[in-house]
């Protein structure tokens, strides 16, 4: 005798628009659809940062619940669901890391106007345009010191001062490398025909 899975069928071809629509209605199926679309990515990101399956599960669960609780605040015009979700997962994973060392997270409210220009689902396009190996190629194409700098920050949860100590370079150098790395990544996206309207 086997366990059966019940409940509404989830279409793998569901779109972010459908998810957003259901979120706006407060329909729990929105979260199931969101998980279907990005659960693996969310878990992979959390796992990459934390290196611990149980901790990654906690982070992903918190992130999805956060999306659910804040669903009424999501505005599709301000960016993609995936960007939103990844940002939450990343922040919470860093929280988890820093919780062990007493560090705290810092949130900024960034530009609504800019995001409103990104009316297309940028990352949806990226996903279509770039295969994962292409993404890695782009990352691998960064100068080693730039790639290491942003990897220590993004995946390792280190602050710029800590990276400065780790890499034994001046703080200003770390800041410059971080900015340059992100600009190059952005350029890589634009090279593949994906850019942001910067008006």
């Amino acid at each position: 005798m086997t366990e059966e899975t019940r409940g509404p069928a989830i279409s793998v071809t569901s779109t972010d628009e459908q998810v957003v629509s259901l979120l706006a209605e407060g329909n729990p199926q929105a979260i199931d659809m969101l998980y279907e679309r990005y659960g693996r990515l969310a878990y992979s990101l959390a796992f990459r940062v934390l290196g611990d399956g149980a901790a990654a599960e906690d982070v992903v669960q918190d992130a999805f619940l956060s999306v659910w609780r804040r669903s009424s605040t999501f505005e599709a015009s301000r960016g993609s669901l995936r960007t939103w979700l990844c940002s939450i997962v990343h922040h919470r994973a860093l929280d988890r890391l820093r919780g062990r060392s007493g560090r705290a997270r810092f949130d900024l409210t960034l530009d609504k106007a800019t995001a409103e220009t990104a009316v297309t689902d940028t990352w949806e396009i990226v996903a279509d345009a770039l295969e994962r190996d292409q993404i890695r190629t782009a990352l691998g194409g960064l100068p080693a010191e730039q790639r290491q700098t942003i990897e220590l920050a993004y995946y390792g949860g280190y602050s710029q001062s800590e990276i400065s100590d780790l890499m034994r370079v001046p703080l200003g150098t770390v800041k410059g490398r971080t900015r340059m790395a992100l600009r190059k990544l952005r350029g890589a996206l634009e090279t593949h025909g994906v850019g942001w309207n910067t008006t």
Partner: protein
Amino acid sequence: MTCDDADLLLAAYAVGALDADDRLPLRSHLVDCDRCRHEGTRYVQAAEFLALGVDLVTPPPALRSRIMARVHAEAAGEPVPGEPWYRRLWSVVPSGRGLTVAGAGAALAAVAAAALVAVLLRRGPGDATLIARSCGLTAAPGACATLTYVPDARQAVLSVDGLTPIETVNGRPTAMYEVWLIRPDGSPTAAAFLTPTPDGKHWTAAMNADVSQYAAVATTREAPGNTDYPRGTEVLRISVPTP
């Protein structure tokens, strides 16, 4: 702070590396600088590239069930404290033991059952360390059960929702739900009978047994009277997680 200074810090913020000392100055600058807020958003979007570059790892199937159980509970207005004890219990279910997604009704039932177990056990959250859930066998597609085990007390509680009510004739039940502990070799041991709560919606059975020594806990619908071997229809089965 100049816009160039802020630009450097925004890149750091995007990858989560902003130093504590830089937070307030940056925040203050952004209040009045549309251009930097604009640029900050672009850095954040670029940083997402790093998320997309990670090796994909498949999450445990139970994770989705846990998330959806919480979402359904909150959607239904169930009180959900910051960190309910049963969530911590769910987190110990090994990844290889999938919890089935059972839709809104079943998920709600499971959460309700977990809460009921909490009441029954009247124990602190640290005492119970093993829990599993199962829903929807063919014979009872609406049923959903939660098994909680307290090692120190060697006590387990099975809590079930969605079972078909037992009819009575002249005040006597026409059937009963019997709980079995299933050994790793598949042989059953009679453990308890499920009893309904007064409203008839929930069923529970307490077992004084070390369920961790068994492979599963099953429930069958049996004719009235004690029986030492399952002869009726199996309506539920829960795999016992490895502690």
